[in-house]
């Protein structure tokens, strides 16, 4: 690594320094109490995945280049040079982290490892080592934002199809999925795929909401990549659309990190106040039921159901009661995972891991806790309001023979509203030929 490159990498620590980061760098005592909090360390036993060690890699670079004590006595702190070996270690430990922040919950100093890893990601990007697939996905999302006119026609055509499905599902030829509707109250930012559009559309239709569907998907690969600027541009697509349509509320699909980006990160990234309210899908469903806008037909599901708190919905956003309330309206037999709520284990698929094949084996291995937890409940249906969690749990289902179905919260509610088995999945083309359920 030449001098200029080195400067670019260490410069991140300098320019990116903030008070929270400095506290975290200074206060950790390396007690390693966090080790048993991390599902990745617990199932691999590899120190590289011990939360404090991941942070320690950055601390050692910081000590070496930025502190007087580290300058004089680097060996006292094991100050480390930025070289290929360090960057390799940093890459593996940093991009593997799912951002679940379970380690923060257990740390006696409440140290947020992910905050330190945010800097590590920025350093890796500066070294030209940002995760490649995430970079490509983020690039594609940005390109879509820049060339939306090219995409629009195809999207509108596709939406016509989806709308037809909705009409047949709710048995109402006037049911609509509006796009670019100015003056709508709500802009709904879905994920790519009808499975993320149809269930909310059913619920919104039944509730008679004045809503519109966003042209852009809520997921944000810039965030996973650790590139705040890309993350900002990707989120801004929705912000601009919402501002243009003058909506009062932006509802984020069942996708944990997308909500975190919009609710907790965007305003700081963009240095602007959002002119609308940001709501998570779990939140609005609970609200609509509570306020009587949608009425759940009586005759609750009796099958044993369990609920997985996605880290970005529970620990990192605080929606513990809303989803449980909604589920209690739909199903009568909910059995909790142990532990649950703020102590819940990460499924192992967060942080963009499900999008990166290089971590496939790793995330299945590190999902063993989750698989074990699910098995213990003996539930046949796992509900979780996060796409990443669902993909991961579905993968765990296969590898660990769990014999379960995984679905979202809006899915079970929408199914109940249209009188189907709550575990029925919403797929394209399925309205014409309903799937038979056992």
């Amino acid at each position, binding site marked *: 690594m030449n001098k200029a490159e080195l400067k670019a990498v260490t410069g991140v620590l300098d320019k990116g320094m903030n008070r929270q980061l400095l506290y975290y760098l*200074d206060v950790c005592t*390396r007690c390693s109490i966090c080790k048993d909090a991390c599902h990745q360390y617990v199932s691999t036993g590899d120190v590289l995945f011990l939360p404090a060690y991941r942070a320690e890699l950055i601390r050692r670079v910081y000590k070496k280049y930025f502190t007087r004590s580290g300058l004089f006595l680097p060996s006292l702190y094991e100050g480390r040079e930025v070289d290929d070996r360090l960057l390799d270690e940093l890459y593996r430990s940093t991009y593997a982290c799912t951002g679940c922040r379970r380690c923060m919950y257990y740390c006696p100093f409440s140290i947020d490892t992910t905050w330190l890893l945010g800097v590590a990601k920025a350093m890796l990007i500066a070294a030209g080592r940002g995760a490649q697939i995430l970079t490509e996905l983020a690039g594609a999302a940005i390109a879509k934002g820049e060339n939306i006119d090219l995409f629009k026609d195809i999207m509108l055509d596709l939406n016509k199809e989806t709308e037809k499905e909705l009409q047949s599902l709710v048995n109402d030829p006037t049911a609509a999925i509006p796009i670019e509707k100015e003056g709508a109250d709500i802009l709904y930012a879905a994920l790519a795929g009808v499975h993320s559009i149809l269930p909310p559309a059913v619920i919104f239709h039944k509730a008679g909401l004045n809503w519109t569907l966003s042209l852009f998907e809520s997921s944000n690969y810039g965030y996973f990549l650790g590139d705040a600027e890309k993350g900002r541009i990707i989120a801004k697509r929705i912000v601009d659309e919402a501002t243009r349509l003058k909506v009062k509320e932006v509802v984020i699909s069942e996708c944990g990190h997308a909500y975190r980006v919009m609710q907790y990160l965007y305003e*700081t990234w963009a240095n602007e106040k959002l002119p609308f309210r940001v709501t998570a899908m779990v939140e609005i469903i609970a609200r609509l039921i509570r306020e009587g806008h949608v009425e759940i037909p009586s005759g609750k599901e009796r099958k044993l159901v369990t609920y997985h708190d996605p880290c970005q919905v529970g620990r990192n956003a605080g929606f513990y009661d809303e989803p449980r309330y909604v589920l209690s309206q739909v199903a009568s037999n909910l059995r909790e995972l142990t532990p649950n709520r703020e102590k819940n284990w990460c499924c192992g698929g967060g942080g963009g891991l499900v999008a990166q094949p290089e971590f496939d084996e790793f995330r299945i291995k590190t999902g063993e806790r989750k698989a074990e937890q699910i098995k213990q409940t003996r539930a046949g249906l796992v509900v979780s309001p996060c796409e990443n969690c669902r993909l991961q749990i579905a993968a765990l289902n296969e590898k660990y023979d769990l014999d379960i179905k995984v679905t979202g919260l809006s899915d079970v509610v929408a199914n109940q509203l249209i009188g189907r088995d709550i575990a029925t999945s919403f797929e394209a083309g399925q309205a014409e030929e309903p799937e038979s359920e056992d």
Partner: protein
Amino acid sequence: MNWLSFLLAGVLVYVAVVAFLVGTAFRIYYWLKVPRSGIKLGIFPQTHGRRRFVQWIKDTFLFPQVLDVDRPMWLFVILLHIGGVAAFVGHLRLIQEFTPLANALGKEGMEQFSLISGGIVGIVLLVSVLYLIARRFKSPYRDISTPEDYFLLILVFMVLLLGNHLRFFGQVDVEAYRAYVHSLLTFSPEFPAELAESGTRWVLVTHVTFSNLLLIYLPFSKLVHYIGTYAVNLMRSEAR
């Protein structure tokens, strides 16, 4: 006092106290100088107002969530910190006798009480720190430890070992220690005759020297958590 004692148990004490205070202030200044990110890092469930305050105190001093993942560690860490405070309070007796207590117990009784309570605290502290040292040598703790960790533990260990030696084997009366502390407080460090002539003197000088080193290094080491913990644990409940 010979010149070495004067240096280590006299001058260095002042240096240490000043370094500790200035170092602490410096660390706080340095933290506050760096701009805060606007992103709120709190985790949920969140508490507000008075409940947030209570939560903060609990997280800072009791960290009950650690009980779920590492009980022995929780126990020894708590013992170490309570013991540390108790030892500090005990030493205050050398500045000013706890008169009400001494009156109630009588001179003999007070000595007895001090021997027992101080003795227990000293042993508990020593055991706790030995636990921490032993833990460091085990994987994965060893893999993440740096020389700083061992250095600090050894400093603390030495302070405790020598302190306990004074307590259990010292041949000197409390009045002699008190005289020494008073000489420090009046900026004329001196050992009273009883102390100067006893063999205990060297144990005392070493005890004080290690304490000084610890005190000097404290604000500049990871032990800076003695002030940092308040800020980081407050961030835990920081709401948007």
